């Protein structure tokens, strides 16, 4: 049991690391094509990473140990999340169940690491990004936990693999109002957490409108590579989770070679579809004003809250 769970976790980490840059590539490529550009191809993020790792980092005086540590912490926390979530197989480690509270808090470790990194060098932009980032992170928190609460009520547990398993067993649950509202709320939150439109524009070059990017301005070479890979892995893992909540089919519940292969293929398929959808949606979305973001998050909170209320009515 433990051995199988470790195998699944290792496969998940490997697959997500391999797929995360491709996911970023798919999103960018879809967007480029829809906007009438040729695009750099889906493999460009991988090429960027290779280039960044082979460069000598430039570090400004005044930036301290955090510039070295924070990227590693972000990447490790994202990898840990990828290992914990039920992405390829719905099997959890006996001592480290994929409890959603634990997953969320591990994500927060990465969030905090990046926010501190933004403050480290003592520049105006870094502080600005960090402040905005933490404000959004703080307001996202209630939605995440209440949505989880809504999903956990029918199962009686906050373990994600059990939630996904239950949805696989009785797929009628997926279309219920409770689950629709909760997944919608979670979707908005995932966009906010991973710095996508309409909360943050990942491809902006204007420092004053940046949130996530503003904190990375000081990072270069491998530091930047870890930060980029870390955010992509985080996006891939969270999108994979949403994908598995919406369409749990294909996930491996009894660990076997064929099952794992099918799980990997299903995950890759879901990620490509979701990445394409995300890219397509971003063509039509404009970035919200920063002070409109709380409205969006309050809206998603209400959806999550209604999901809980609805679960009392239906249940």
């Amino acid at each position, binding site marked *: 049991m433990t051995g199988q769970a470790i195998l699944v976790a290792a496969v998940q980490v490997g697959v997500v690391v391999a797929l995360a840059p491709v996911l970023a590539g798919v999103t960018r490529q879809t967007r480029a094509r829809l906007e009438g550009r040729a695009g750099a191809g889906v493999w460009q993020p991988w090429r960027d990473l290779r280039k960044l790792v082979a460069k000598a980092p430039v570090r400004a005086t005044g930036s301290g140990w955090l510039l070295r540590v924070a990227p590693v912490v972000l990447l490790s926390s994202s990898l840990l999340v990828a290992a914990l979530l039920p992405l390829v197989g719905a099997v959890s480690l006996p001592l480290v169940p994929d409890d959603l509270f634990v997953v969320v808090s591990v994500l927060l470790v990465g969030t905090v690491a990046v926010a501190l990194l933004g403050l480290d060098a003592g520049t105006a932009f870094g502080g600005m990004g960090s402040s905005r980032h933490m404000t959004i992170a703080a307001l996202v928190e209630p939605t995440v936990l209440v949505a989880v609460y809504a999903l956990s009520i029918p199962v009686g547990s906050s373990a994600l693999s059990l939630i996904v398993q239950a949805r696989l067993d009785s797929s009628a649950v997926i279309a219920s109002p409770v689950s629709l509202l909760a997944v919608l709320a979670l979707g908005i939150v995932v966009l906010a957490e991973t710095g996508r439109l309409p909360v943050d524009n990942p491809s902006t070059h204007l420092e004053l409108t940046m949130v996530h990017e503003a904190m990375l301005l000081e990072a270069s070479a491998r530091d930047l590579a870890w930060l980029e890979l870390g955010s992509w892995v985080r996006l891939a893992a969270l999108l994979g989770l949403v994908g598995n909540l919406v369409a749990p089919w294909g996930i491996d519940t009894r660990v076997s070679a064929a099952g794992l292969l099918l799980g990997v293929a299903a995950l890759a398929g879901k990620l490509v579809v979701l990445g394409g959808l995300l890219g397509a949606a971003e063509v039509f979305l404009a970035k919200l004003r920063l002070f409109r973001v709380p409205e969006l998050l309050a809206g998603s909170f209400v959806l999550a809250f*209604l999901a809980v209320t609805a679960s009392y009515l239906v249940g």
Partner: protein
Amino acid sequence: MAANVYAQLVGLAAGVLLLTGVLLVWRRSLAASVRLLSVQGAALGALVAVIGVQHREAGLLAVAGLVVLLKAAVLPVLVGRSVPADAGREESPRLNPTAALIAAAVLTVVAYLVSRPIVGSSPDPAVRAVPVALALTLLGFLLLVGRRHALAQLVGFLVLDNGIAAVAFMTAGGLPLVVELGASLDVLLVVLILQVFSARMRVKFGALDLDELTELRD
């Protein structure tokens, strides 16, 4: 219809009703509000149809057709026609949207609490969804209280009416056809009057901001 399919369909329709209610509170664009209103009307019609099929009542099916026609098509079109092309969104609602959304969440809880005696231990999924209809009524009131624009208020009024109609259909399997017809005509009349009224207002003040109307005159 199998019991669980019936429950699912009622749940889905109720979910759409509630969701559109919340979205109406959330969105400030009038055009979007009108579209949401039409979706809400369709969901209400679907709910009536589902109840009608379950109870095998042809009358209810006719009412469902009427509801869809009136609430999903005629009323939204009527309201939509008077939305001025330049009125993109209401810039400063009385209640700021974040507070309104939180209020919406609280109202849903209130609806859930106060409808306990009605729901009781009834096994009928339609009756169990009464809190949703009640919440819709309260959300309609919230819109009426919280918006400045005359048309946004009209939308609130229609949401309120949808909520009341939903309560009626869920608890008693609907009112007799005649009563329903009368009530619907009433609403239609109100909408027409308000439309004329808002047109007059625009001529008089050049805007539809109800804050202009704070004085009583002889």
